[in-house]
């Protein structure tokens, strides 16, 4: 047994004959029994990484192992130990919920009686018992995603890959899935989660890597990433955009990075929270500029992302999805 549930070293993968470089040397180590977050905007390479680790794609270079088994050389050993729930609910529309789970169980080579019992158990656990005998045509987006996750769990895999499990879901369905994921981890499952929602990574993941354009640009715990950025974010609201523009040169040097200006609002990342905040207020007051609002807060992962990549996580175009209502 190796120390880590999943290990990857210098994974490189490109598409379209090298034109699109999805991964440019990604290494990661996923400790057992916790959620490991792979954070990044669309097109950053998260899904490619998950597909390589789940043996769907082979890397152009680099080595990856799951529970010590090489994903390229021993794919079947890997497949026996993983569950995969994708960004899209990959379940069969024409089958019932129960039939979907039974099919996945059979393909996992579980004994027939075990499959039936396990399918019923999962349907109950995911609140799908009633819907279990209906075909998926009448399922909501949240129900499909729950069934998709249930399908990944049929064979009780010790390692679960969740590729943007809550993308496109309504807040309630998202909360439900988060609770389920937390319960799984309590039960000892290792989860590798990709997400573009910083809130999701913040809530679930103990360790994080931030991926941008196929490379890891930061890693650590969510607290470490925030600490790396600075201690405090000061948001100043002015009466008008003109006032904000006038105030900007006065406080610019207090910020650890270029201040974010949004209309009449300025956000500063402060070196040493309270004293710098007081300094900012004194300077503005001295120049006769009044502020209409003030907010001091701990940096969110959004701030981390912004400082690392120069753009917000949501700035990247997001794919519209019709199936997730």
């Amino acid at each position: 047994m190796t120390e880590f549930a999943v290990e990857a070293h210098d994974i490189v993968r490109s598409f379209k004959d090298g034109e699109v470089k999805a991964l440019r040397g990604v290494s990661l180590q996923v400790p057992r029994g916790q959620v490991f977050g792979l954070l990044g905007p669309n097109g950053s390479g998260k899904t490619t990484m998950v597909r390589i680790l789940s043996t769907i794609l082979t890397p152009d270079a680099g080595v990856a192992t799951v529970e010590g088994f090489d994903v390229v050389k021993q794919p079947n050993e890997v497949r026996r130990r993983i569950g995969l729930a994708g960004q899209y609910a990959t379940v069969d529309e024409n089958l019932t919920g129960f039939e979907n789970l039974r099919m996945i169980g059979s393909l996992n080579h579980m004994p027939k009686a075990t499959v039936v019992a396990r399918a019923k158990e999962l349907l109950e656990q995911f609140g799908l018992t009633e819907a279990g005998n209906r075909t998926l045509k009448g399922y909501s987006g949240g129900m499909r995603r729950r069934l998709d996750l249930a399908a990944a769990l049929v064979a009780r895999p010790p390692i679960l890959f969740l590729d943007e499990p809550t993308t496109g879901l309504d807040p309630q369905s998202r909360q439900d899935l988060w609770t389920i994921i937390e319960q799984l981890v309590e039960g000892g499952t290792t989860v590798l989660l990709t997400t573009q929602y910083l809130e999701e990574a913040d809530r679930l993941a103990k360790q994080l890597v931030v991926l941008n354009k196929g490379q890891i640009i930061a890693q650590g715990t969510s607290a470490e990433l925030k600490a790396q950025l600075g201690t405090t974010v000061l948001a100043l609201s002015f009466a008008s955009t003109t006032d904000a523009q006038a105030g900007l040169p006065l406080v610019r040097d207090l910020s650890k990075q270029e201040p974010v200006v949004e209309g009449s609002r300025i956000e500063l990342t402060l070196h040493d929270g309270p004293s710098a905040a007081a300094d900012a207020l004194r300077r503005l007051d001295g120049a006769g500029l009044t502020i209409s609002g003030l907010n001091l807060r701990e940096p969110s992962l959004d701030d981390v992302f912004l400082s690392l990549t120069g753009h917000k996580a949501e700035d990247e175009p997001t794919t519209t999805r019709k199936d997730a209502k």
Partner: protein
Amino acid sequence: MSATPLAQHGSLKWAISDTLTIARRYILALIRIPTSLVFAIIQPIMFVLLFRYVFGGAIPIRGGIGTYVNYLIPGILVQTTIFGAVGTAIGLADDLQKGLVERFRALPMARMAVLAGRTLADLARNLLILVVITGIGFLVGFNPGGGFIAYIQACVLLLLFAYCLSWGFAYVGLAAPNSETAQAMTFPLIFPLTFASSIFVQVQTMPSWLQAFARNQPVTQTADAVRGLMLGTPHGHSSWIALAWGLGALVVLGPLATRKYRRAA
């Protein structure tokens, strides 16, 4: 690490089990979507009625075949398997597009089971259609004189032909970016194969440049063989040629589709 020999120990057993699981999935879907089964069965019945009662009177048949209905029914059987294979291409393209293939690829199942299961389900569907169309044929005056054994031989040949088509169209489905394109891609394939053949009319009535293609293409060979065996009329070497086409195509198309499946994203 000790799990490896265990996996290889039962690999054939699991390959069969996985194939049956996948086949069951497609058969359930076929039953669930009534339009697909209705389409598969109603459409050939329409063709039987159309050619038996509308066009048939205008199509003279030479040789000892007798009435046009005897010429027609074996042809319709071949045509139905060709049109039915379009569903294989569409179905696989759809599975690929929706990410279901992706899920299968992350499972410890036999690699070939998806295609083997799909083509097996097609075989079951074709067998059902064969029985139904034969029944309809008898109702509209089909009177084969080839004997029971030859009739069974014809059916086996037909199903082999249909099975090869499934693999060929599976390849098309895996090569297509989505199910709509898959459907569009099959059209230029099935149109000349079906209509520039001996399915509905005798090849010698066609212009000579078309005859060269029509006479030698596998659909004509298969239709001639199936017809000859069912009716008990001379059909030259066509049953052997059809058999050779069928087995040959399977040897080529099977691995080709399997390779495509492995590489399909």
